[in-house]
């Protein structure tokens, strides 16, 4: 965008954040009573809702059942009013299908699928408002929803996006920064072991800078983990108070 500085001389971004600073994150678990697990997250102006059904019997053809592990099924849908320009179809287009596949890949790495052979776990993610970092918000919401459903996981899955402007790596990109056209990296991390569940990058980036951008994204993901951990502990504390423990 002509005339719009993504990073000012003093080191401030368009919305006043520092280079490695995350947007404000608020999250809640257990928002829907009828689903097995649900969660809602707000990362700045990006709002995402995740709902988990399962593990349950395979729907549709029994032939898809895997004999030694559970089938993870993800759908990504973004509301027609979520973006600035109205979207025609909430899901079913190429980008939504690709996001669904990426989410599936991410969660197959984290969920202990061997414990539930021949069954299916459905993860449905809905983006209510998109302001950049939608993949990261979806992964974070889905992690909380899977935890709310009581499905065992290897570790939290925390995701964050990162970019590169003027020699500095930026963490947690907003829509304005994504639309500017610089390199964007999406990273999903299992924080305790430091293992990467998904790594994706668009646009050109010199390999000398890759390590810095990757480190910025990993640090941001670890910060997200601290926040999500707090949310889960708070939720469990509230639930146990209600039970009278």
């Amino acid at each position, binding site marked *: 965008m002509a005339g719009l500085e993504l990073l000012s001389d003093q080191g401030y971004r368009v919305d006043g954040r520092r280079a490695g600073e995350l947007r404000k994150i608020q999250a*809640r678990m257990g*928002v*829907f*009573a*009828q*689903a097995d697990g*649900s969660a*809602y997250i*707000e990362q700045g*102006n990006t*709002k995402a*809702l995740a*709902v988990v*059904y399962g593990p349950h019997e395979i*729907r549709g053809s029994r032939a898809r059942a895997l004999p030694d592990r559970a089938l993870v*099924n993800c*759908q990504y*849908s973004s*509301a*027609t*009013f*979520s*973006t*600035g320009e*109205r979207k025609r179809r*909430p*899901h*079913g287009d190429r980008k939504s299908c690709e996001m669904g596949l990426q989410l599936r890949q991410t969660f197959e790495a984290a969920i202990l699928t061997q414990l539930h052979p021949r069954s299916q776990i*459905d993860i*449905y993610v*809905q983006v*209510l*408002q998109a*302001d950049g970092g939608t993949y990261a918000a979806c992964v974070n919401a889905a992690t909380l929803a899977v935890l709310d459903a009581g499905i065992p996981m290897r570790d939290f899955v925390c995701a964050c996006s990162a970019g590169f402007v003027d020699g500095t790596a930026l963490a947690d990109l907003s829509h304005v920064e994504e639309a500017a056209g610089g390199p964007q990296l999406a990273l999903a991390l299992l924080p305790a072991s430091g293992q990467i569940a998904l790594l994706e990058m668009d646009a050109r980036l010199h390999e000398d800078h890759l390590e810095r951008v990757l480190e910025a994204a990993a640090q941001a993901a670890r910060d997200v983990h601290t926040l999500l951990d707090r949310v889960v502990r708070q939720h469990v504390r509230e639930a146990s108070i209600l039970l009278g423990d």
Partner: protein
Amino acid sequence: MASVALSEAEKVYIVHGVQEDLRVDGRGCEDYRCIEVETDVVSNTSGSARVKLGHTDILVGVKAEMGTPKLEKPNEGYLEFFVDCSANATPEFEGRGGDDLGTEIANTLYRIFNNKSSVDLKTLCISPREHCWVLYVDVLLLECGGNLFDAISIAVKAALFNTSIPRVRVLEDEEGSKDIELSDDPYDCIRLSVENVPCIVTLCKIGYRHVVDATLQEEACSLASLLVSVTSKGVVTCMRKVGKGSLDPESIFEMMETDEAVACQWYDKQLPNLDGWLNASSKNEEGREKDGGICL
């Protein structure tokens, strides 16, 4: 609708209870569940609202875009409805599974608004035959707990109330080409009057009696329902019978009377609260108080 598995014993229990004017959650046959309405929940829309009616959760976003008026109505703008039954509500709605229900609800909404009085479409006209505002009303079904139509109609009414359309002026220069100018003040906008926007009241026939605001379990026990959309002045704009059973003509008149009685009670007691609350919350907006995002 989302299906729920009920045993025969549970169905008998519900039907017998309804005959005695006693429902499973303790309500009478003409009582609504507690309704929560919240507006201005999604910021990049022209207007939005969220309604929670028991376990039913609806989110509506309205986006105003410029378009060309329809040929048969050159002085008016128009509304377009789209209903998305998301897989959040039930896994059956995954992929294209929710399209049938979504189309049915969208068609019902078109029919309700297909009259001169519901929304004043002339306010949406910018210049006749050339430019007008098109309001895209998008309904998102987050959770399905029975009585979808009622909740959706309330949410659409609240979202239309919350909609603010920027004021534009059409400038014509010497050569006759027209330019559209947006007002400089971001708060200078047109608000729609939703006094005559109707609300739907659904009556489900269970056994010999009918109930208002049925839950999913009660809908599974009922064979047929009558849907009536009524405005605050008691004007009926649309009527539909849904369900696989058949209704006696006598019972239809009986149900219509109950419908009107319930709707009048609604408009006397609850909707003045809604209208009054909507008016109060608009004053808050003028005082620039932000009520924030969705409280879940």
